[in-house]
């Protein structure tokens, strides 16, 4: 507890409050704008008059009518869930081997994984696009999902965590006749719930919000994810602010919902991975 607790507010604290609150308002203003403009007809925004009796959900309905927004949401949901689940599964298996099994070349391979963290994703963007094209995966779910399943960062973070679990547990399980797969599933995975949850939440929001890769490997309208669909929407309806705001609202809702439900896990995930700032 701080020394100031329980005393009356000093003037400096009131000033602090005022500044923090003003900053908070600045942060909230865009969300407030999205909400208000999406709930009134466009004329209301143009006239800057928002009479209560004109509130409507029409913009939301209209957004779903003019672009296949439902399809975008479905695509984003499929891709996000698949990448989150499979990426953590694949990373967890590899991390288990790196942390708790011995094999020739383990340290060298792990260093190689670590080294790839230095390489910006733009370097692999073009070859991966060409690989996807040659595999015949362009404009399919496979293109959106498969390259996202292999993460050096997830593997690294899980390995670091697995190393903190006492090795005695493995040995005890082996004494009881458990193989490595069972040790992974019944000893390691249950003990790493918090770190997996944090990683899952981080991967979920990163995949949901991903922009460059889905932009590059989707071509047709019905394969677009929410951010891509939205960015084309701006191109076509650049002044239909009411519709654009409704679309923006729909696009941020899923992640905001998870954020409010699992606030602690979310912040942990971002802090843990350290790369969530973009």
């Amino acid at each position, binding site marked *: *507890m701080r020394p*100031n607790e329980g005393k009356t507010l000093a003037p400096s604290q009131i000033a602090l409050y005022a*500044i*923090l609150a003003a900053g908070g308002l*600045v*942060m909230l*203003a*865009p969300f407030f*704008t999205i909400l208000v*403009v999406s709930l009134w007809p466009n004329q209301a925004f143009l006239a800057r008059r928002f009479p209560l009796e004109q509130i409507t959900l029409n913009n939301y309905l209209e957004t779903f009518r003019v672009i296949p927004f439902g399809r975008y949401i479905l695509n984003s949901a499929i891709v996000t869930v698949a990448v989150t689940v499979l990426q953590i599964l694949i990373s967890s298996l*590899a991390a*288990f*081997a790196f942390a708790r*099994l011995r*094999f020739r070349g*383990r340290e060298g*391979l792990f260093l190689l994984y670590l080294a*790839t963290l*230095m*390489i910006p*994703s*733009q*370097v*692999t963007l*073009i*070859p991966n*696009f060409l690989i996807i094209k040659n595999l015949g995966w362009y404009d399919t779910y496979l293109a959106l999902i*498969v390259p996202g399943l*292999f993460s050096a960062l997830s*593997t690294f973070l899980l390995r670091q965590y697995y190393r903190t679990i006492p090795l005695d547990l493995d*040995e005890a399980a*082996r004494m009881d*006749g*458990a*193989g*490595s797969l*069972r040790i*992974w599933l019944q000893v390691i995975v249950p003990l790493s719930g918090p770190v997996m949850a944090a990683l899952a939440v981080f991967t979920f929001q990163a995949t949901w919000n991903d*922009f*460059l890769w889905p932009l*590059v490997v989707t071509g047709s309208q019905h394969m677009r994810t929410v*951010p891509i669909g*939205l*960015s084309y929407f*701006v191109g076509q309806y*650049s002044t239909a602010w009411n519709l*654009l*705001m409704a*679309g*923006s*609202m729909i*696009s*941020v809702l899923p992640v905001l919902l998870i*954020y409010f439900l699992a606030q602690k896990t979310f912040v942990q995930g*971002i*802090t843990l991975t*350290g*790369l969530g*700032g*973009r």
Partner: protein
Amino acid sequence: MSHPSATTAVRRNPFRWRPDQQWEAYLFVLPSLLGFLVFVFLAVGASFGISFLDWGLTGPRGVAGLSNYRELLRDPVFWRVFRNTAFYIFTIVPTQLLLGLLIAVALNQALRGQELLRIIYFLPVVTTIVAGAIVFRLLLSRTGPLADLVSNLGELAGLPLRMPDLLGSTQYSKWSVVLLTLWKNTGFTMVIYLAALQGVPKELYDAAHVDGAGAWQRFRNITVPLISPTTFFLFILQTIGAFQLFAEPFVLTRGGPAQSSMTVVHYIYDNAFRFTRMGKASAIAWFLFLFIFGFTVMQNIMQRRWVHYETE
């Protein structure tokens, strides 16, 4: 997948190295390794190779040698987008670190409503960047609410104030990207700084208080040095992020007008997927990598001068 030989080996000596575990281990790594081989290792090699080719979408048209790289050095647009990116790094990174630290220090006091404020400041971080960019298109447009606010304030003060055309002028378009990015990312630096501040031992502050150190002195002589590893980490991370800026200007200004807000990554995208010049685009990507790598190495050398580690 229980191996009988493994268990007998364990019974004999739990810490003995077992050859059969080796194959098991490879199986665990295999799914990940296959993906890395194709989408990372092969891709990195291919990218390097392609940067020396004259490659359109219809296939390799021939070896270009160093000509992609040479062309870049003479390409005025490349230098423009490079300067833009440098501008973003120099404006966004320091501001973001400073604002994040100030908010974190303020929120680290036992304030009422601290929790709520933290949630609010963090909200933009989890927001889809495209949605953020679209609202900023509205907010910053010449007929938008911010322009209203500025001219209303001007009227109140009796001055002919007008908001500059943040989105549509070559002079100011970069600033709109800066504003959007600050709004989006400051909550991130704040959260990381908050975690660091909680790790600073309270006794140090108490001792300094007894010695008569004021708030500023305590901040300057205790907080700043003790969280310098975090500052270093954020500095590297945010600089690398700014080097890779793409979605923000791509949606907000489309890189324009006249490439005035375009970034290096946007130019890679344009070359590869609009002009189908895969070779040139790959060469730009390697330039980018070189700069990021050089920057990181340089900072790791310089950190000895200003980063304070507790183990020392």
